[in-house]
């Protein structure tokens, strides 16, 4: 991982409070930025207010740049989201484990699809599985389906971009208010797919209530999946212990174990996470 100062290449406002930023980074950072990994970003002003860097999923990357989605949820994200083109940002990453490779070992033998489930801002992490592959299919032997849920139609972000840059992808959307045509939760879409393809492999990222539901659905269909979690973290590299998540016990004593979302995650096997 690298500590670097990046420059804002572009800053696009997607909704009232969501921005899409392209930032320069060292080539080695970009090479190591596998799908599902994240970057800590902070303003490079030396004023310590806001103090800590914030974690963001790396949504896309090129040879010397990467892209993140920033939603304003507090002072830190407000300040970062307002950075103008050309201004500097201090970065640390890529961090975390990322999604597992969709190889033959992970995938079941039949033609069951890979299902990507995104809720709200979880699209940043999920889309990296598609965009990093640069229009190549994730796995030539299986179809990929993106199930994408958000609060409203205008928060279904960058759909054209994702569609344009992905190969052999089917996209299904749903919103809380029905403004995209279908009303409900993204986990309803997941249930529909798993009913047809019970041996699918699922990757999911979104708010905790959604991930909880995804876990339950996967459990119901007895099928494998991975969840990408988010938590508050001060450091991002395994020392502050602010982001630990309870995990199913693997030891003999039956006591629950915990894992650091930053270094042991953010992606965990769905059946290991204890919400």
């Amino acid at each position, binding site marked *: 991982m690298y500590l670097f100062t990046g420059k804002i290449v572009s800053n696009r406002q997607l909704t009232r409070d969501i921005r899409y930023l392209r930032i320069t980074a060292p080539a080695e950072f970009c090479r190591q930025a596998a799908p599902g990994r994240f970057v800590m970003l902070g303003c490079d002003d030396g004023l310590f207010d806001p*103090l*800590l860097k914030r974690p963001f999923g790396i949504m896309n990357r090129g040879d010397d740049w990467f892209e993140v989605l920033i939603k304003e949820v507090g002072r830190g994200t407000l300040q970062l989201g307002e950075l103008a083109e050309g201004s500097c940002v201090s970065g640390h990453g890529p961090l975390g484990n990322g999604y597992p490779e969709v190889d033959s070992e992970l995938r079941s033998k039949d033609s069951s699809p890979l299902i990507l489930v995104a809720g709200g801002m979880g699209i940043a992490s999920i889309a990296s599985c598609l965009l990093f592959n640069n229009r190549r299919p994730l796995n030539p032997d299986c179809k990929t389906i993106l199930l994408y849920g958000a609060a409203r139609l205008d928060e279904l972000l960058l759909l054209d971009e994702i569609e344009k840059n992905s190969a052999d992808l089917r996209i299904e959307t749903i919103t809380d208010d029905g403004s995209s045509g279908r009303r409900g939760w993204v986990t309803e879409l997941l249930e529909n797919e798993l009913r047809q393809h019970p041996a699918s492999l699922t990757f999911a990222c979104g708010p905790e209530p959604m991930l909880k539901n995804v876990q339950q659905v996967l459990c119901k269909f007895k099928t494998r999946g991975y969840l990408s979690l988010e938590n508050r973290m001060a*450091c991002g*590299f395994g*020392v*502050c*212990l602010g982001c*630990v998540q309870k995990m199913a016990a693997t030891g003999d004593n039956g*006591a629950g174990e915990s894992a650091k979302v930053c270094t042991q995650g953010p992606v965990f096997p769905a059946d290991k996470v204890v919400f």
Partner: protein
Amino acid sequence: MVDLQVEIVPGLVLKNPVMTASGTFGYGREYTPYLDIAKLGAIITKGLSLKPKTGNPGTRITETACGMLNAIGLENIGIERFLSDELPQLKQLGADVIVNIFGNNQDDYAAIAARLDQVAGIKALEINISCPNVKAGGIQFGTDPQAAANLVAAVRRVTTLPLITKLSPNVSDITKVAEAVADAGSDVLSLINTLVGLAVDIDSRRPLLGNITGGLSGPAIKPVALRLVHQVVKAVDIPVIGIGGIASARDALEFLLVGARAVEIGTANFINPQIGLEIVTGISDYLEQHEYEKVTDFIGSLQV
């Protein structure tokens, strides 16, 4: 070349006065991708207990103006796993290691200290009597001079290692605790641990931390820490290590100026994992520019 070596006590000589504060530096290994940890004055481990500890449930950290509140709850791997899995690598990397210890009661503290007394590769023990985020142990000893003195005396009986006692700022008169633990056999004092704070959300009408309260750290607390170090340096004859909001070489020099023999860098490690060595270099550069031959000439040179 400025001589940065400081003798804290005869058994504890540091190559430079910059250490890393317990709880912000893991077990040291986590920082090896970022800096050569052997070049730090010492690394101070995450607080270790006899048995592994899982820490507090719920949200553990939240940011505040120029600082952060944490309520981790002393999560750690336990002393035995530290000795088998972490210490050998630290020794191999050439790091000078100070182990921060805590327990639920006096016997626990003494048992860990006795266990570490026979272990090669540990330079000193830092006794944590000041964690605000656990119900048993920690701060209950740090706010009562007599309890603190009894605890330090119990640890003193079972170890020959230099003893540093880490003090809490959450007291009405820190010099009372400082004097008590000095009399009980602590060789060195380190201060301050975090200040107890609270953050609430007016929309959900709930505290932001699972533990309700947390420990405040970061640049926000530096003036308080500096005042307390200044006060304790004047009150006791044993050396003092300064901690609290240090994020630059100038910050570190401020603590040395008021009389700290060394400093510990805490929260700043989270923001910039290389800050420890940047501060070592910064101190050296400053002293060279101002024609000091050795850092000890600068320590305690505050003119009031």
